[in-house]
């Protein structure tokens, strides 16, 4: 469990990025953090893996206060995939990239090999095993970064903008994959601007603006509230926008999913769903 209590954070240049943030995340939860550029989303999640320590307040991950352990130790528990994969990748081949952390964590060679194979297969990267990450496309590099984190099986997985550069099928695979991780009891936290992806996944949504949490709750509740999302520089997903426009026409307001939308409309139009 993650417990963030009244966290403030000020960068060395004086910018106050977090102004009292409190948040609890249960084991096995799927959480999406959304909001304006510069709202403090990335700063907040970097507190969970201990990369940043709060100027005030506390962050506790599985009963461990992050100020009391090293980032390296927390990393076993909290895997972090950066927004820009180029900030993360450095090895000669994809295989070495994925092996690197495993070797640091002291796995033996057969175990490393097994995990690398597993992670490559999982993220559809097997054919690139011996290829340099820098020969790959942006979307593929992003998957290499993800594979290298998942390989060591952290309990909490944080993905900063995981859908950038991913096509529709890869997004669908990512969605299924997050569901799988949740089923295994892993906590998944994504930071994202991709409203349609969030509308499909329906995680718990945390909206941030100006260093604070503006609102949190079910995706259907948050992403159908125009005033609220607008304050966080977010827009309504297409289906939510449509159902907002259809207000007063005998359809419910809190709809974000296309299949649910179709069911409701068919029922309303008297056709068998």
């Amino acid at each position, binding site marked *: 469990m993650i417990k963030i209590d009244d966290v403030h954070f000020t960068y060395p240049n004086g910018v106050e990025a977090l102004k009292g943030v409190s948040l609890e995340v249960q084991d096995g939860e799927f959480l999406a953090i959304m*909001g*304006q*550029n*510069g*709202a403090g989303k990335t700063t907040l999640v970097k507190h969970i893996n201990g990369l940043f320590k709060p100027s005030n307040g506390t962050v506790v991950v599985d009963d461990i206060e992050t100020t009391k352990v090293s980032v390296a130790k927390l990393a076993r528990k909290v895997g972090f995939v950066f*927004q*820009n994969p*180029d900030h993360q990748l450095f090895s000669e081949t994809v295989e070495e990239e994925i092996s690197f952390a495993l070797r640091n964590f002291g796995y033996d060679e057969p175990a490393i090999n097994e995990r690398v194979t597993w992670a490559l297969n999982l993220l559809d990267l097997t054919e690139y095993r011996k290829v340099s990450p820098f*020969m790959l*496309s*942006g*979307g*593929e590099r992003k998957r290499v970064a993800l594979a290298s984190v998942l390989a060591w099986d952290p309990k909490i997985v944080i993905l900063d*903008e995981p859908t*950038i*550069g*991913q*096509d*529709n*099928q*890869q*997004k*669908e695979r990512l969605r299924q994959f997050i569901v799988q991780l949740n089923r295994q009891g892993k906590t998944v936290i994504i930071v994202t*601007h*991709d*409203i*349609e992806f969030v*509308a499909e996944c329906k995680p718990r949504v945390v909206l941030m603006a100006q260093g604070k949490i503006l609102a949190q709750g079910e995706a259907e509740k948050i992403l159908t509230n125009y005033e609220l999302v*607008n304050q*966080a*520089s*977010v*827009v*309504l*997903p*297409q*289906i939510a*926008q*449509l159902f907002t*426009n*259809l207000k007063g*026409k*005998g359809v419910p307001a809190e709809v974000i999913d*296309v*299949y649910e*939308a*179709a069911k409701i*409309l*068919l029922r*309303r*139009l008297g*056709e*068998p*769903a």
Partner: protein
Amino acid sequence: MPIIETKNLKYTYPIGTKPAFEDITLKIEKGEFVVLTGPSGCGKTTLCRCFNGLIPHFYSGTLEGEITVSELRVSEHPIHELAQHVGMVFQNPENQLFALSVEKDTAFGLENLGLPREEIRRKVDWALKTTGTFEIKDRAPYELSGGQQQRVAISSVLAMQPEIIVLDEPTSFLDPLGAQKIFEVINTLNKELGITTILVEHRLDLTSKYASRVIIMDKGRIILDGPPKEILSSEEARLIGVGIPKVTRLYHILKEKGVNLSKVPLSADEATEVLLEVLAK
């Protein structure tokens, strides 16, 4: 005369065993707004690199066939000459920004053209204001967030007011409202100034409503090419797995169940219009 014309264009990267794209025959007319999409690795970014001459002048490898941009044969004109006609915004803004301030980055291209000081000033201010970067004009690009860097990259290209603007997922790091505003700016420039626009995007929910044409590539070839409503409502587009707008998908599901809407919607507003017709009955 088309502003971009290719004939049997084919390109293979120096390390590649198979072509990144092949058999690309394409005419784009002045003032078109083309959304170019397709699965990752389909060759769309590589194709865009030909439009401003990065291929074949910067990337080696083998380019076959013909390509003409603004009546210039790309293979015979250097990048700096093509750059006066084609502005390019890359996927990763870090690869594009280099100056010590946002303002200098935006002014760089204009200064190189040797324009009068006043004109540079005017164009730079306009570009900075249009992209919402005027307030950060004295900051260094490398200390900005990914979203702000994307705005600066767009600003540098807009300042040049090129005939053609090629944007490769230009708003991926921007928050949704910020992205929407940028797309609206691009749309306005296209409609009012007639700047030919080629936008590479996966998120068709956000962008297809601005397009006059959608091109879908798959495995290095153009598979579908035509008006957005026609292309995005086709069975082929769904099978290739491009991100069809949710309301277009809704149109299909309703149609399968026997509810025919009067036209194919691409945006929530269009969907509202056609649904009100049937709900009113």
